[in-house]
């Protein structure tokens, strides 16, 4: 039997000339899957990376080094920035281009579309995957974190008209289910019911970043590079990108296991104290938090420190973030209930405060009585020593 649907296409995302790690992870997983697939079915289907942009041909080598068999690149000044409409059109053009099929495998002339297709489940990929698959009129499973290819036998009133059918080479797409029933498996199956027969290919999904592992680059790997010349319609370029600015939340209280926060206790020498907190945080690989009053900039300090630290984004408490850090260091924080609410779920709390009666004393595991400017340097010194010992 000659397959109309072949290969696994991976839509690669790049950011300022760099391949995103989720794209590398997808190619790694695609490689593993297709190696298994080709062995199982004695086939030679390929991992095909699709990359759009401007001056990106060079990336093809990198993509091949991390597992792609072929790279289809599309280089055009209009593709320098991602715009959904034009990207959707071109990716659909690539996916339905039969010439590409021939270039990938000269012996198959019946190629119509890819068998599988991967997108990244980040904000761009989620958007793109939905519009591309709507264009291709097939299904899409979002936010997938496990993939298996198998032949499955099933009967289904709608899909098979109630008779038992074997679906070969079916991509089982898993995602955690919020209802608590372990995993949901999503299948994208052709309708074989004679009453409304139709195909659903490619079987596509978006993949959660950080789930799969990318392969170590092997510069000796060889692969095929195909240039695709897009048909660009002016009316798909209506959205213009005038300027571009990366808005990244500077503050992340989710990932770090340690948080160092400071409050009005910095008052005697705000700049020096903030720098001390910065040093301590760096040493502990910690994020820096503040209390609400600090966000109102009660002290005059240099503007670069102010705009970095005395900002609402850093506030921990009822009108800011809640954290459950493993280690929480509260330096010069009195322990107002608004702040305590945001940090009381922390694993281990160290408070530094010169005032014995400070409310924070009731909320901490270790209370160090003293001014932060005196205590933090000692802490830093001691931690450095301990790190040396541990590393030795």
């Amino acid at each position, binding site marked *: 039997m000659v397959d109309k649907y072949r290969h696994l296409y991976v839509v690669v995302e790049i950011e300022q000339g760099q391949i995103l790690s989720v794209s590398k992870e997808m190619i790694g997983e695609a490689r593993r899957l297709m190696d298994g697939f080709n062995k199982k079915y004695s086939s030679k289907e390929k991992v095909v990376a699709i990359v759009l942009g401007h001056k990106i041909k060079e990336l093809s080598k990198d993509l091949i080094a991390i597992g792609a068999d072929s790279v289809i690149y599309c280089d055009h000044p209009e593709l320098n920035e991602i715009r959904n409409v034009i990207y959707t059109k071109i990716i659909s053009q690539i996916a339905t281009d039969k010439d590409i099929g021939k270039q990938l495998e000269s012996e198959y002339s019946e190629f119509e579309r890819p068998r599988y297709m991967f997108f990244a489940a980040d904000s761009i990929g989620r958007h793109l995957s939905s519009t591309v698959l709507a264009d291709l009129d097939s299904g899409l499973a979002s936010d997938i*974190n496990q993939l298996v290819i198998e032949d499955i036998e099933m009967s289904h009133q709608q899909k098979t008209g109630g008779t038992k059918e074997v679906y070969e080479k079916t991509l089982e797409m898993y995602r955690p289910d919020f209802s608590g029933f*372990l995993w949901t498996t999503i299948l994208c199956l052709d309708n074989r019911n004679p009453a409304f027969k139709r195909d659903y290919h490619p079987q596509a999904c978006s993949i959660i970043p950080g789930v799969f592992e990318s392969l170590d680059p092997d510069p000796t790997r060889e692969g095929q590079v195909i240039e695709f010349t897009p048909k660009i319609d002016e009316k798909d370029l209506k959205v213009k990108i005038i300027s571009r600015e990366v808005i990244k939340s500077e503050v992340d209280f989710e990932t770090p296991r340690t948080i160092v926060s400071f409050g*009005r206790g910095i008052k005697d020498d705000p700049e020096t104290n903030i720098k001390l907190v910065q040093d301590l945080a760096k040493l502990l690989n910690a994020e820096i938090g503040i209390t609400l009053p600090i966000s109102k900039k009660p002290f005059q300090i240099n503007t670069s420190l102010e705009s970095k630290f005395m900002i609402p984004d850093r506030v921990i408490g009822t009108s800011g973030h809640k954290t459950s850090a493993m280690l929480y260091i509260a330096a010069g924080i009195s322990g107002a209930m608004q702040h305590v609410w945001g940090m009381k779920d922390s694993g281990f709390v160290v408070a530094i405060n010169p005032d014995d009666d400070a409310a924070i004393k009731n909320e901490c595991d270790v209370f160090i009585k003293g001014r932060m400017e005196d205590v933090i340097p000692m802490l830093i010194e001691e931690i450095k020593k301990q790190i040396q010992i541990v590393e030795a």
Partner: protein
Amino acid sequence: MSLEKYDVAIIGGGSSGLAALQQLSKLGKQAILLEAGSDIGSKNISGGILYSKKPKKGQVTNVDDLYENFLEDAPYERKITKYILHSTSKNKEYPMDLTEAHDYQSNFGCSVLMNKLNSWFAKQAVENAEKIGGGLIPGVHVKSILWNDQKTIIQTDELEDFEVRAIIAADGVNSEVAEMVGARKKFSPTQLYQGVKIIINLPEELIDERFGINPDEGAAHLFAGDITLNHIGGGFLYTNRDTLSLGAVYHFDSLLKNPTEPYTLIDAMIKNPLVGELIKDTVPIKKEIDKNLPQEEQLRIRFGVAKLIKNWKELRETSLSPSGRQNLIDTGKFKSQEEIEEKLSSIEKQMSEKFGVTFGTDYVEVEYGAKLVPDGKRCRMEHPFFKNILFVGDAAGRGVFVGPRIEGLNVGIDDGVRAANAVARALDSNDFSESSFGKHYSQLLEESPFTLDMKQIDKDYLKIFLDAAKDVPKDIIGSRYGPILKMMSSGTFRGIAVKFANMLGYDKLLPMVESEDTYVKVPIQLAERLGKTVELTYTPSIPTIADRIAGLSYNDDHEPHIKVLNPQTEFMKKLVTLCPAKCYSEEDGKVLIQHEGCVDCGTCSQETQWRHPRGEKGIQYKYG
């Protein structure tokens, strides 16, 4: 440049302002209502009973007169049919049935939640208002009012300035309009009560059963005695459709004398065995997640448990309500009641078998809020107008506090209608002078039966209390109120005594009646001597104030709307305790404010520069 012009601006979209809008629209007059909240009702909160008054003398416009379909369509909660005053002392309580006092001069009194109800009022009023070129604009905060060259100009934080011919100020107890134009001073602590309220979830049919009422009935329980923590005032617990309103209302003066955190006063009620038993419910208790499991698995369990509990709560709540059950069957989600019950028990089984969830007893608090209540006896505006501005309801200090019954919503609605009538006449005669317009409104308010209640003791109303207390041993009451009581309990003398008391006036009389004896000591004695014992069968997990504040929704304004004037006064230092949202703290003898958790109650307004937050900013109540 010519400004946009409207006939009337109503400032504030509470029940009173909305009533004015509705009445003006009925009279065919163009009015525009400005509300600071992002939605009507989101900034409104009340104790929770709206009365329809049947006065012995005079006439009022009740909610069911103003909105003819009120009883059929309005989302009020329950008509109160049972009204009981409990005297408490530790685990003893002595009930007194005061349903007669509740029914006195009343067509009905129903429990209400302001967010829902005011949105409904707004919906009724806005349709008519828009037909005549008026309407309702939420998210607008009035900044100032100017009189320029015969023109009245309103300036807001959000809109272009515009011109009006008259203004109805319905901006509540902390009326900024009154303050900025100088119509009255801020109310003083002696004139105010501070009310704090929590909303508690309890499925509808459990409420029926627990409170011994039918689906079309409601209960109000009032509390005095040791739960007041020696303050002048008391607690209340009202049944809503599927929630309860639990609150505490105390005289501000008494709170200042002996500062107690408002939430501690609420907590004292929750800890009372009688209250605790009335509010309890079955709650799921999650099993601690094994920290050694892989991150992803932990996450899956957390989501799984949360989702199941949510499903369970929703289905349980719906299935314990006759209309909810019917709806489940009518919409075809379930075939029969049995099927609903099966589903519910299968969810419960999943919860316990899959995730080790157990079930226990606790109470479920869903919203915390606070407000100041003006005591009309002490603070109603003598002249409720200024130039071409009329003041209504709370803004004019008009609340009726007589005995345990507090009326404010109905007063505000009636005031709103009277103000609308006065405005309509002025529009017709084109005379907005104080001597005509203001005086006319003033006179309309004087005719209000509510005003009479704020001035005089009603001897028939008093008799109800005396009758209710007739089983009380004379020595308990007698030792404190001996001579008064003797006079009052005799029919002939009562008339004379009340007349005499009214001659003395509320000013002199109130300190005698509104005393620790009335609210604390006598009730404690009653409970101890005559009360029955109630045991609390569980330990309520009471949220901290930080949890309560964190549970509310805010649209934070980085511009503070409150400024501390002098951080070192005695009053400001007491606010560290008295602010219901704990916005104040003291450091090195100076009081600091964090306005972010503020619930706009106005407790601190006395000695601060106090404004409502700008349009759409600040607290947003879901229940209110």
